[in-house]
């Protein structure tokens, strides 16, 4: 059991005798910890400190989840439908684009709309996360300057926030699939593997872009334009089959490979080995780059706020 610390120190501290008697309840104590940081540390130590950041950040998962959840709650506090506005706006968007593009591309609505719904919702998650990742650390400036926290907590917050938005868009996919009676079958379970890969890449994106954007404040617009280009060169509103033989390079677009690991199983196709391999290679390279950068800039992040 805890006991008031003042009782202990009243004995050891002479000047405490004059202090008023304190009858406060036993309050939670912080976990005892040891912090050891220095400028002349070795590369191994730098790596291990970065790793500790990830581990301690993951241990604070309840904080990260709560922060992400509160972000969504605050954004929609006071609105009648709350985050379900997301669902409605996505549904309207898909209905409008589906109607128009199926005519433009001479596509059968029956196959086109489920593809479009799934593509747009998944792209919303990827594109939304990348855009949001830029503010991972700048958004938490106050906290970063006020207390030592694992930086991974802030990445967790952004990923949770994106996951919650994504979950609110899922009913649109379910609705479209139900209307066109599309049932992907058990192969859909494969998409879970894709989601795992997305989550890992999402953390990496937050750490990398969050750090870069903290240092260079003109990166968010650059990222914005890259994502806009990616949206058009990735098969999202157009079907990969429309390129015919010219589409051999598609899986080499990292966004397409990543999208396919989740989208294909949900449309009832198995993901090809090549796509999985490329998605994994892209992720390993991306995570490696992130690690390289994070280990180096972690100690500087507080100075950049």
């Amino acid at each position, binding site marked *: 059991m805890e006991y008031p610390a003042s009782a202990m120190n009243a004995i050891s501290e002479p000047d405490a005798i004059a202090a008023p008697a304190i009858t406060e309840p036993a309050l939670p104590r912080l976990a005892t910890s040891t912090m050891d940081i220095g400028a002349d540390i070795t590369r191994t130590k730098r790596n291990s400190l970065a790793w500790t950041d990830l581990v301690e950040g993951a241990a604070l998962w309840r904080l990260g989840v709560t922060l992400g959840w*509160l972000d969504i709650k605050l954004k929609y506090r006071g609105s009648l439908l709350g985050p379900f506005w997301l669902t409605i706006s996505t549904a309207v968007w898909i209905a409008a684009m589906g109607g128009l593009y199926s005519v433009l591309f001479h596509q059968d609505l029956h196959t086109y709309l489920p593809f479009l719904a799934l593509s747009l919702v998944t792209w919303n998650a990827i594109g939304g996360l990348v855009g949001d990742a830029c503010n991972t650390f700048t958004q938490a400036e106050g906290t970063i300057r006020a207390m030592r926290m694992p930086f991974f907590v802030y990445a967790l917050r952004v990923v949770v926030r994106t996951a919650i938005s994504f979950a609110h868009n899922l009913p649109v996919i379910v609705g479209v699939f139900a209307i066109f009676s599309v049932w992907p079958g058990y192969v859909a379970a494969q998409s879970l593997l894709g989601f795992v890969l997305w989550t890992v890449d999402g953390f990496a994106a937050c750490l990398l872009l969050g750090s870069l954007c903290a240092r*260079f404040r003109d990166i968010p617009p650059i990222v914005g334009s890259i994502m806009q280009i990616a949206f058009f060169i990735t098969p999202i509103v157009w079907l990969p089959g429309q390129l015919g033989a010219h589409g051999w390079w598609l899986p080499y677009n990292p966004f397409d490979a990543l999208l396919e690991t989740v989208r294909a199983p949900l449309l009832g196709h198995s993901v090809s080995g090549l796509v999985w391999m490329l998605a994994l290679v892209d992720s390993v390279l991306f995570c490696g780059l992130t690690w390289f950068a994070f280990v180096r800039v972690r100690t500087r992040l507080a*100075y950049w706020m």
Partner: protein
Amino acid sequence: MRGPDFGPCGNGLPALFRDPKPMAHIQVENVSVDFPLYHGSARSLKKTVFAAASGRLGEDTRQRVVVQALRNINIDLRSGDRLGLVGTNGAGKTTLLRTIAGIYEPVAGRIRVEGSLNALLDPQLGMNMELTGRENIMLRGLYNGFSKPQINAMEEDVQEFAELGEFLDLPVRFYSSGMIVRLGFALATCIRPQVLLMDEWFLAGDASFMAKARARLESVVRGADILVLSSHQSAAVLNWCTRVAWMDHGRIVMEGPAEEVMDAYLRGVAPSARVLEEAASLPA
């Protein structure tokens, strides 16, 4: 250092009631902190890349404007030590607190802190005006890694002290300024760290400080094994600190027993090397 029976771990008590925590310890060795000043083009990737391409980056890096916030700071504090930091604005007091708290990692030197640490630096820390009082309490608990029952205990304590009543479930922006101050204060002081770092804002408006708040703050200060207090107010430093470090331009210019250093500081006397030596050899 103090004798063993003066330790904060309650060595005078029967073994059963002894504090099981290990001793707290702060070691700051030769620590220097530089602040790079990023302004204008230094914040721009485009300009940095173009500067690199035209071969101007090397020069840029060398000529980068930095503020030398801390220079060769050495501090060794053990359980029972109460250190006051005094000095003019910009002397590096708050930066030193932030560095000990592990927020700024030094460019030179080494810092080691043993024991749980809480830094009372920012009165608005973690307070989100849009969230309710209850949500703010929960968040603060989570920041400290508390469990659900611990957060409940915290909530009870804060509620009792801040006297928010039904406002607890309303967003903080509806609170009166007095309620916000009470909530912020209650949140900051409901945690009992072994190492307490405190900035002067906490003592601001000392005269109007409620007796209740004073008693609460004192109990937190006394509960801490090590206190580092940065302040302009000599009364607070003399009241709470056993040692004082006088800082100027990022350096500790004089360190020693509280009365002696405060006396010199208030008279504005530059310390001689003799005093510094004496201070180093004095028992803390």
